């Protein structure tokens, strides 16, 4: 099961994911990120993954695609509070070098000085 919670935040779009991402739910994540970014220029997005226990490769590909799209638009895309099981896959597949990670939401906020 995956819960996607667009969360109010100051100065950036915040999307909180809870549960697990599989290939059926991965497109919803992408849609949620796209919706949260509406009207933002440059796009700034934080994914709070403190409650994400597992993601299939489909979810990882969504993170990658969003990161590239937002970077291309001159914006910032941050994953915060990545749990160990998800982190291991990100790390071994090389994604930790491509994605911006923050240990928690407070640290992610610091990346967006107001």
């Amino acid at each position, binding site marked *: 099961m995956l819960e996607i919670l667009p969360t109010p935040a100051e100065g950036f779009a915040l999307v909180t994911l809870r549960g697990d991402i599989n*290939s059926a739910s*991965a497109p919803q994540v992408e849609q949620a990120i796209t919706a949260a970014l509406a009207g933002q220029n440059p796009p700034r997005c934080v994914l709070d993954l403190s409650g994400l226990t597992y993601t*299939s*490769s*489909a979810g*990882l*590909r969504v993170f*990658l*695609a969003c990161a*590239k799209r937002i970077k291309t638009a001159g914006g910032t895309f941050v994953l915060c509070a990545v749990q160990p099981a998800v982190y*291991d*896959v990100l790390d*071994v*597949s*090389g*994604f930790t*070098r*491509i994605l911006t990670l923050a240990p928690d939401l407070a640290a992610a906020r610091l990346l967006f000085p107001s």
Partner: protein
Amino acid sequence: MDTRIDVYPTHEIAGLKARAGRPLPFGATLVPGGVNFSIFSRHATACALVLFRKGEPTPFAELPFPPEFRIGDVFCVTVFDLEVEEIEYGYRMDGPFDPARGHRFDPTKILSDPYARLLSGRNQWGVEPDWAAPYPHRARIAFDDFDWQGDRPVGTPLADLVIYELHVRSFTQHPSAGVRNPGTYAGLAEKIPYLKELGVNCVELMPVFEFDEFENSRIAPGTGERLLNYWGYSTVGFFAPKAGLAATGQFGMQMDEFKTLVRQLHEAGIEVMLDVVFNHTAEGNEHGPYVSFRGIDNQTYYILTPEGYYYNFSGCGNTLNCNNPVVRAFVLDCLRYWAAEYHIDGFRFDLASILGRDAFGAPLANPPLLESLAYDPILSKCKLVAEAWDAGGLYQVGSFPAYGRWAEWNGKFRDDVRQFLKGDSGMAGAISTRMQGSPDLYGWNGRGPTASINFITCHDGFTLYDSFAYNGKHNEANGEHNNDGGNDNHSWNCGWEGESTDPEVNALRRRQIKNAAAMLLLAHGVPLLLAGDELGRTQYGNNNNYCHDTDLSWIDWSARAANADLFRFFSRMIAFRRAHPVLRPLHHLTGRISPTSGLPEISFHGTASWYADFSPGSRVFAYLLDGTQARDGQAPDNTLYIAFNMHWDALGFALPAPPSGSRWHVFANTGATAPDDVFDPGSEPILSAQDHILVGARSVVILVAR
């Protein structure tokens, strides 16, 4: 622009929207709105695309190709609205079953795409498969979204390469490896600091194309355990990295993990060479399974006898028909893919002589495949290395069709150096030639010393330690009553067969390992080391270790402390080679005398200076390399004096005078015990007597003039 490319479906087949596809590229390719599938078969009468949901035994759709979807011998279709990540695909081909004419079509089989870039079915190493599964090696659709972050091939000149051959799983599977992801690409990446410390700048990975580790029905005598095809010289998917060697194989992320490994190795200045097996496939002979080629177009892909049986030049049941133009293009496509998509720096071709045989098995004078590879624009910077023989009796060391590009595993270097090391007499002349980069093999044809990949040990045969611990092979654990594996090991047990408690025997073995390391890293040409030799790794006399997923294969990292002197010797020899361009010439030396030094480029010596003993009884060889002429005088270096004494007695060697103004310093003396056996390059101690040296029994001395 998109509107100018037709991306709308024209057909509905089996409930899926489709249109006639594009014949190229072969394989499954993401296109706007769908996936383009394309596969060759010359003799199939009908073909269907079979689609599965991930892991399910029965397909959810089967799309027969209508005649208008066939262009020439290619079936191609674009299918729309597929859940790309959720799908596995295969093909069903119909056609004649007429073995005498080479055809073995079987429409009951589902066939894997030879161009599949991602395969599932063996996602986790060693998890026994469901043998009744109708489609075991399942093609998946791959993404091309890896971020290389500006990575590019390292581009180390061949002459400067130090190759380190390893098996991905063996390298870190042992519990002592201390890595988070043992036995995987990621685990190997964690060991990069070790590779840097050792000093190697190229890793040659034993097969990483998808294979089936369960392709072995033998049982280990005694233990009753199932033996494996552990090494993987039996390819199931040529475009797919082996999932079971990836920590993320269960997530289908092996492509990313492997690319990450390559990127990290490149960052460390280490090249990646792949051991590729194009001589045969995992389909075996007429009793073997249908994986893909046999059912797609048997007559095209395999070399067949006039009666339609499989020629077995590989020793593995079948032989790929490499010089058929279709197969040739397949091999080329595959290597281009690995070079372009995975940033691979070079390839070592297993039993490469098969790549020079024609459709009837006869060796070609000008094999089109080898020529194509040599001149290919995409592979032009890749190292191409041939194992220049096959199991059908073709032996081409020194005569492999090279086109100015191909290097060879120099089997003669291995055989001569091993015989010399074990004390065989009459080897001095051969050793002189081998140390000079084998001009007898690569001089007359202008190929130069870098055509010679020098090695003393490799995955086949004894480890270095076992070469000095066993007279004969001990392969009982392989389940063939010790009949498998080579018998020409040129090994010597130093006085006791197997593990010994005799300190003299053990000291001699360590000295011999150092002698071998010295000869390998001094020789002109390109050295190749077998992983673990620097830690004194043993296989307990097994010289054909292809089937053991046990500590018989795994590197035991806890052995490092007890073998610190060996590691130290290897790493300093590598550093010494790197420090001295005179050891890495681009051309064979001629003996030309320098007007400045008055010395020949190379001169030969023995126990007397300026007199080499090449007589049949000789076990001694010494030589002097003139530093002023290093790399044709372009890289001035120290003058080096190197003495090998493989006699069982210590012998006094009269030394040639060092160049005026310099004195002899001792870089290495394997007759001394650590730490006096080898020094840091640049801080070698001076030799007390400058005109002679006592070289211990079975010892190597290396002197530097400065």
